[in-house]
C-alpha cells in the first residue's frame, strides 16, 4: 500500500523542483496508464500511482480493487484495499466471488498493477515466502489476488523499490507468473495475456525483451546511473540500446501527489 511508502533519497531537478526517489517511482508508474484503461489495483504499492494518474491526466481511468469495488474514485488513498471510501465512491460494489469470476477471469480488465517482494529477471513475482515454503526465513502475506491478476489482465505493470533483495535472479517461490523460470513458460502454458509489460522502480524502468522476455532497463530516472542500477539488481541486468531518461516530475504531478498524501495522512490520523 502506498500510504506506507518508504522515504527515498531527495533528488533535485534542473527546474528547481525537489522530489524523492519514491515520488519519482510513483509518478513514472502513473504515466504508464492509458486514460481509458480499466485497471485492477493489486495489494502493494500501486494504489498511489493509479490514483495519481486518475487525478491528473487520466480522469476517466477505471480503478478496480479486489474487494469488489468497480470504478472507485477515492479522495484519499485507502490504507487497506477494502476501505469504506472505495465502496462509497464506486460505480458499484460486487461480491468477491463475482469480482474474481466475472470481472477478472471474465477478461474485462486491461491492466493489472502489482507490487512485489521479489521480482526476477523474467518478471515472476514472489509475495509468499523468502526461503523454503516448508521452513521459511520470512513468511510473507501470500498470494491474495495476484496470481490471477498476473495471468488474466491484458497486461501487467509492476512497481517496487529497487534492491538486490527485491530484484533477484530467480524468485524463491513463484506466487504470480511472469514469463516463467526461463522466460518461455508463459506461452508454453497457453497463457494468452501479455504478462509483465513494464516494471517501474525507484531507480529505473524495465521492459521485457521482445525475444527472450528478460527484463531490460529501458529508462533511468533523472540523476540515476547505470552503475547504481546494476549494483541494485540481482542479476547481470542489460540496458536497452536506446536507453532513455525518465522525464522528471512536473510541478503538477508533485503537487497532486503530495496533496493526495497529505489528505491521506489527515484522514487516517
Amino acid at each position, binding site marked *: *500500500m502506498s*500510504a*506506507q511508502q518508504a522515504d527515498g533519497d531527495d533528488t533535485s531537478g534542473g527546474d528547481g523542483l525537489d522530489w524523492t526517489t519514491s515520488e519519482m517511482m510513483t509518478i513514472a508508474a502513473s504515466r504508464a496508464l492509458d486514460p481509458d484503461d480499466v485497471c485492477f489495483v493489486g*495489494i502493494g504499492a500501486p494504489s498511489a500511482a493509479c490514483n495519481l494518474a486518475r487525478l491528473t491526466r487520466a480522469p476517466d481511468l477505471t480503478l478496480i480493487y*479486489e*474487494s*469488489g*469495488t468497480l470504478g472507485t474514485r477515492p479522495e484519499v488513498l*485507502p*490504507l*487497506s*484495499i*477494502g*476501505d*469504506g471510501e*472505495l*465502496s*462509497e465512491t464506486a460505480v458499484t*460494489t*460486487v*461480491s*468477491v*466471488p463475482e*469480482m*474474481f*469470476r466475472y470481472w*477478472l*477471469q471474465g477478461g474485462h480488465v486491461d491492466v493489472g498493477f502489482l507490487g512485489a517482494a521479489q521480482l526476477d529477471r523474467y518478471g515472476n513475482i514472489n509475495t*509468499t515466502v523468502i526461503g523454503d*515454503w*516448508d521452513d*521459511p*526465513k*520470512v*513468511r*510473507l*502475506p*501470500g*498470494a*491474495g*489476488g*495476484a*496470481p*490471477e491478476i498476473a*495471468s*488474466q489482465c491484458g497486461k501487467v505493470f509492476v512497481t517496487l523499490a529497487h534492491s538486490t533483495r527485491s530484484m533477484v535472479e530467480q524468485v524463491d*517461490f*513463484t*506466487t*504470480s*507468473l511472469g514469463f*516463467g523460470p526461463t522466460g518461455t*513458460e*508463459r506461452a508454453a*502454458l*497457453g*497463457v494468452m495475456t501479455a504478462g509483465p509489460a513494464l516494471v517501474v522502480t525507484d531507480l529505473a524502468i524495465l521492459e521485457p525483451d521482445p525475444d527472450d522476455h528478460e527484463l531490460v532497463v529501458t529508462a533511468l530516472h533523472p540523476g540515476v546511473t547505470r552503475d547504481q542500477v546494476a549494483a541494485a539488481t540481482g542479476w547481470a541486468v542489460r540496458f536497452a540500446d536506446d536507453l532513455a531518461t525518465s522525464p522528471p516530475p512536473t510541478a503538477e504531478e508533485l503537487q497532486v501527489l503530495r496533496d493526495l498524501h497529505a489528505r491521506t495522512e489527515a484522514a*487516517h*490520523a
Partner: protein
Amino acid sequence: MATFPSLHDAVADAVHDGDTVALEGFTHLIPFAAGHEIIRQGRRDLTLVRMTPDLVHDQMIGMGCASKLVFSWGGNPGVGSLRRFRDAVEHDWPGPVELVEHAHAAMASAWEAGAAGLPMAVLRAYTGTSLPDVNPDIATVTCPFTGEELAAVPALRPDVGVVHAQRADRDGNVLVEGIIGIQKEVVLASDRSIVTVEEVVDDLAAPSPNSTVIPGWAIDAVVVAPGGAAPSYTHGYYDRDNAFYQAWDEISSDRDRFLDWMQANVMEAA
C-alpha cells in the same frame, strides 16, 4: 429459522474444539467480537478458514486456538506482517500451525461452490505458479467440450461460519451493505452459522429490492453485538480504526506484550 442468543451462548453452542471455523469479512465487517469470544472460551485445535486473515486471526493464532489455517493472504492491511502468525509459522509459537495456502480467486470460487452445495469449484487459476507444489488441494479437471485443463479446488464447507453485518429484523433477516465480500457465501456454505449485527430493528430498511439480505431461515444464530466489527468497520455505522491497526504492529511484536494485551483487553473484557 434464526434464533437470537447471546454472543456467549451462540459461540458455546456452535464452536467446539477441533472444528473448522470461518470468521470472514473481506477487509470489512470483520467479526472481532465473535473471535474474541472464541478465544475467551479457550477453543483449541481449530482449523481456521479465511481469505484475508488479519488481526483477529493473529490474536486467535497467538492465543493457541488454531492448529491449521486455510487462507490466501495473511497480513496487517496497510501496515505489514502479522507477527503472531509469522511466529507460529516460523517458530511454532505457541504451537505449529499447518498452512493450506490458496490465492483469492480459488478461495472466492471455493466459497461460491460451498454456498452452491457442490463438492468442488472449477476455475482458471494457478497456471505457472508454485502454489500447486505446496497445496495438494489444488487439482485439475478437463472440460469435456474443449479439452481445456482447468483448476479445481475443494468447496469450502466449514462446520461453523461467522460474519458480521449491519442489522437484522425481528425475523432474523440480515442486511449487508458496502463491501459485501463473501458474507452470504459463508453463511450458506457453513453447517452452523452465526451472524453478529450492530442492531435489531423492526424494519430492515433495505434500500433496494436487490439489496444483499440473507433470509433469517438460512441463518442459525443472529447475535446483537454493537461495535462487533471494531477495530475494522461497519459501513454506515463506524469507521475503521486505522490507528489501532498501526498500533497492533508493536503490540504483537513481542510475545509477552501480546499476552498482556490480550489478558487485559480480551480475556478480562466480556
